[in-house]
């Protein structure tokens, strides 16, 4: 179990307990966090679960796969720490993780 902080573009903050083994995307969908859509259900097909990982956590969340990188390159406002929420699997190591959500998921 990890406590994840999702910060919406508006600044609204959600602190959520997410079970180990779930993805960041699923954690957001289960809690109806508006800034994450997860259209494709988590198969790395749509980039509607774009999150920006807090700098301090980047080493823990790891780096994106090739398919993920390509999608991320084409999101409206990619950043150095952009990831797809469906590709980050929650574990105890990520307890305290902070991610920011973009203005729009497209």
């Amino acid at each position: 179990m990890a406590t994840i902080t999702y910060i919406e573009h508006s600044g609204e903050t959600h602190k959520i307990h997410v079970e180990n083994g779930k993805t960041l995307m699923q954690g957001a969908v289960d809690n109806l966090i508006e800034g994450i859509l997860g259209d494709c259900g988590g198969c790395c097909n749509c980039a509607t679960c774009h999150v920006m990982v807090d700098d301090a956590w980047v080493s823990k969340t790891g780096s994106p796969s090739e398919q993920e990188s390509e999608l991320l390159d084409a999101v409206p406002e990619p950043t150095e720490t952009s990831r797809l929420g469906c590709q980050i699997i929650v574990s105890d190591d990520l307890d305290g993780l902070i991610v920011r959500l973009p203005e729009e998921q497209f």
Partner: protein
Amino acid sequence: MEDKTCIIIGASHAAAQLAPSLRQQGWQGKIILIGEEPHLPYHRPPLSKTFLSGEQDVESMLIRPAAVYEKFDIEVRLGMRVESIDRANKTVTLVNGECLEYSKLAFCTGARPRQVDLPGVDLKGIYYLRNIADVERIKSRVIAGNRAVIVGGGYIGLETAAMLSSQGMKVTVVEMAPRVLARVTAPELSAFYRRLHREEGVSIKTMASVTGFQGREGHVKQVLCADGEELPADLVIIGIGVVPNVELAEAAGLVVDNGIVVDQFAQTSDPDIVAAGDVTHHPNLIYSHSLRLESVPNATEQAKSAAASLCGKTLVYNALPWFWSDQYKVKLQIAGLSQGHDQVVIRGDHKTSRSFAVFYLREGKLICADCINRPQEFMISKRLIAQGQSVDPQRLADEAIVPRDF
């Protein structure tokens, strides 16, 4: 709690979004979700992909876990069919005779496979593929070395062919049209999929119509084609499209025309009733005509509009249609709808590679893109289509120009 009740009929993608969205929009009354299948709403796309292959189980396919429905105080009644609706008295009657009152009603009844009426279709070993129960039956017949025939060369048929072949079955796809995916894509893409399947050992027989099935001891053994060919088969899957589940709505007197007719707010002809998902015939504002879509993003986004309408708010459903298909290691992502295009532009090598994009233009504007292992082209196309911008076909085709600079 208020004394109002919203009943949602059908428990799949649309419903799984509509029910919690209702709470978010401020609905304080009861919410009852009624679904005929015995499962909580689950992701349907993996059925012909990772669920068929055994990589995913039912639990991991649930759209939201049971706890979420509890948290949002959504009463879920599974394995229960709604039999009829009485709009005058605002009640629904369930298959067990129970009668429930509603203040608001939502149709999320989706679609079902189009059935064929051919001799021998009732033999064992012949299936349709729409839900978990179907795939569980199919899985019990997947035996390496045995023969499978897929009737219908649409996306679901081709995905299923890929999965069965990956599991060692000898697979033949039978398609009536001159090419697979004929209804939805350009000839170049059809030719690509034909090549892909051939390279992976699946044979595709086009311009072939199935006239019946023959069996032994009640089990299918052959698929009969109009040209006289008899294809040996131990397993047959029929995937020739779907029909919307409109009968309940029709019997209740709602306006139905290839789906339950709704406006851009997912509102039906009855102010207390909305509909969302595969079952709706709705206006598409980007393409300026009405249509019925079969896709997950359509179901979820339209459900959000439906939830708003039920709460007396307005949220226009105005999303760009998109779709995906996974076959072997090849990812197809489709942005938009190609219907009505007057120009096709190809980027990359569709003849020998497994990475290219097909762009469809109308009057100089991009209206659709089929992207094979080209996520960037897909992402950028979504935006270009939604913005209705004119594009330069030469730039689209020029691999020296990155998608961002189209």
